[in-house]
């Protein structure tokens, strides 16, 4: 990991110059970019490795993810991007053979500490999956499910409406709230899943290739939505689509597969983590350059 210039632990603010430069080029943007010194790390990932049984899936990942930004995780298939994102809300707990080592600080609290209940973690850190996975229920009940299991107080109709508005879906579905969600288009289903995740008012949204099953128009809408959402949420997105990473994200982490030290196994590692502009225009590592310019992958 020594070659990783953006290893934020050893070099706390390696990105400030580029970050300032980038926002300066888009003066029309309404988002208030925190000054370089005030960027808040929401996740402090420290030396995380994940084993599936004997196999080491990702090795020694250390990076900070920032509040109210979109962080893209890119890299070839099998490099551990999904494994990594699933560590952030402890979804890997559901795979009996998965073992997570290292620590992930969330607002300074280690998500993998003994006394942390993964159920509570997932209430704060929402997730959207690769394939839209609506429940076989009405649109209304899909949205209301999260708030109900959380025992959220207040007017459920308002909670549902507000979530659908934030998911940019309200106008399309307000007249058919009681129809089955399976009748929606793929793009609508995915926005429903986003709205569903927002209904419990999390502060982080994890998205694992949310657009890979969608057409370009639906993808565009979800990207617009993400841009809107980052005012209120921190977003981490896994994507195979480099243009998408370049379009939407503030920071990009490039994962790749490396041979293990004994040469017998292949592990996912983070090669480079930097502001998106830098990763795409001036990457430090040859492997990043080859990947983002399309020479490999």
């Amino acid at each position, binding site marked *: 990991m020594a070659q990783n210039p953006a290893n934020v632990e050893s070099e706390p603010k390696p990105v400030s110059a580029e970050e300032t430069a980038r926002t300066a080029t888009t003066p029309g943007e309404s988002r208030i970019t925190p000054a370089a010194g005030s960027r808040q790390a929401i996740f402090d990932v420290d030396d995380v490795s994940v084993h599936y049984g004997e196999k080491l899936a990702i090795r020694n990942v250390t990076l900070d993810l920032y509040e109210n930004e979109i962080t893209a995780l890119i890299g070839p298939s099998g490099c551990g991007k999904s494994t990594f994102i699933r560590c952030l*809300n402890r*979804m890997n707990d*559901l795979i*009996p053979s998965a073992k997570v080592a290292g620590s992930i600080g969330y607002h300074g609290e280690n998500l993998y500490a003994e006394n942390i209940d993964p*159920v*509570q973690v*997932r*209430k*704060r850190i*929402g*997730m959207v*999956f690769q*394939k839209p*996975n*609506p*429940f*076989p229920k009405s649109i209304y009940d899909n949205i209301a*499910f*999260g708030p109900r*299991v*959380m025992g959220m107080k207040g007017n459920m109709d308002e909670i549902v409406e507000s979530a659908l508005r934030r998911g940019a879906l309200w106008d399309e579905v307000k007249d058919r709230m009681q129809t089955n969600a*399976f009748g929606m288009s793929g793009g609508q289903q995915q926005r429903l*899943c986003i709205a*569903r*995740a927002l209904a*419990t008012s999390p502060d982080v949204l994890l998205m694992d290739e949310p657009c890979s099953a969608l057409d370009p128009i639906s993808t565009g809408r979800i990207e617009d939505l993400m841009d809107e959402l980052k005012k209120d949420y921190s977003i981490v997105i896994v994507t195979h689509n480099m243009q998408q990473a370049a379009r939407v994200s503030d920071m990009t982490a490039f994962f790749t597969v490396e041979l293990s030290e004994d040469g017998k196994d292949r592990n996912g590692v983070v090669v480079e983590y930097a502001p998106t502009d830098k990763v795409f225009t001036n990457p430090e590592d040859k492997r990043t350059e080859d990947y983002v310019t399309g020479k490999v992958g």
Partner: protein
Amino acid sequence: MTGAQIAEKARSKPSVLPAPNGRDQLYGRLFRFAMYAALFLAFLGLGAILYDVAISGAPRLSTDFLTKFPSRIIPGNSGVQSALLGTLYLMLICAVFVIPLGVATAVYLEEYADRDRWYNRLVEVNIQNLAAVPSVVYGILGLAFIVRGPLGLGNVLLAGGITLSLLVLPVVIIVAREAIRAVPPSVREGSLALGATQWQTIWKQVLPGSIAGIATGVILALSRAIGETAPLLVIGAAASPRFNPDGLLSDFTAMPIQIFVWTQDPNREFVDLAAAAILVLMIVLLLMNSIAIVLRNRYEQKW
């Protein structure tokens, strides 16, 4: 080129595709014929039995036949009330035992059990095996443990119901597991990712999504239970009682037992009564299976 010209050209030129292989085609036809023949034979057998039963049984069918008690002496004055009620009660008892136990076991095996543990694998293998154990063996088990032995209930309705429950429990577990497995993992993930607990996920997503499959399986299993004769004979169901079971600890009989008793009678008229009783039992079974089919078609979740 006009269409006619293209057609003309196609005719005049040899086809670019290889000629069909005559032998392959013949085998294809033979295979198809063999399958139709097998299907026909199966239906022929079923049809012949039904025809035979209907010819001798149908004239005996009447509301009197349903409401009268079996008579040992006068066939014309005989009916199946006690047997039909016995069968319905058995089915109820069976449902009460089998649904909670079977569904709970299926939920455990599908949602909680760690397959790497030897005891879970042992349970799985045993359930598969139990489903294949002959029903008469369950009868012996019922006789030794429920009628006599530890429970010592005597040959009463409850003993019959428990014995039949044990008989169909493995089947119910297997179908319930299949229905639960049909709920895609993405639904569980979606639910858990929203901060639902595993229990909430099972109760509010997995079970509602598999309820149609479970109900269908339970009905089919119950219809197997009420058709069983051997275990009830072994545990000692009453022959032709002239009373209805009046409680869980009452003597009882059931349709298959009544049918069996009548077929043993040297008097030909009683054998005709058996045919009529078979028709009644068949109608009950058909009704149950139709309910199962309707449930499946109407409520089964398409993922």
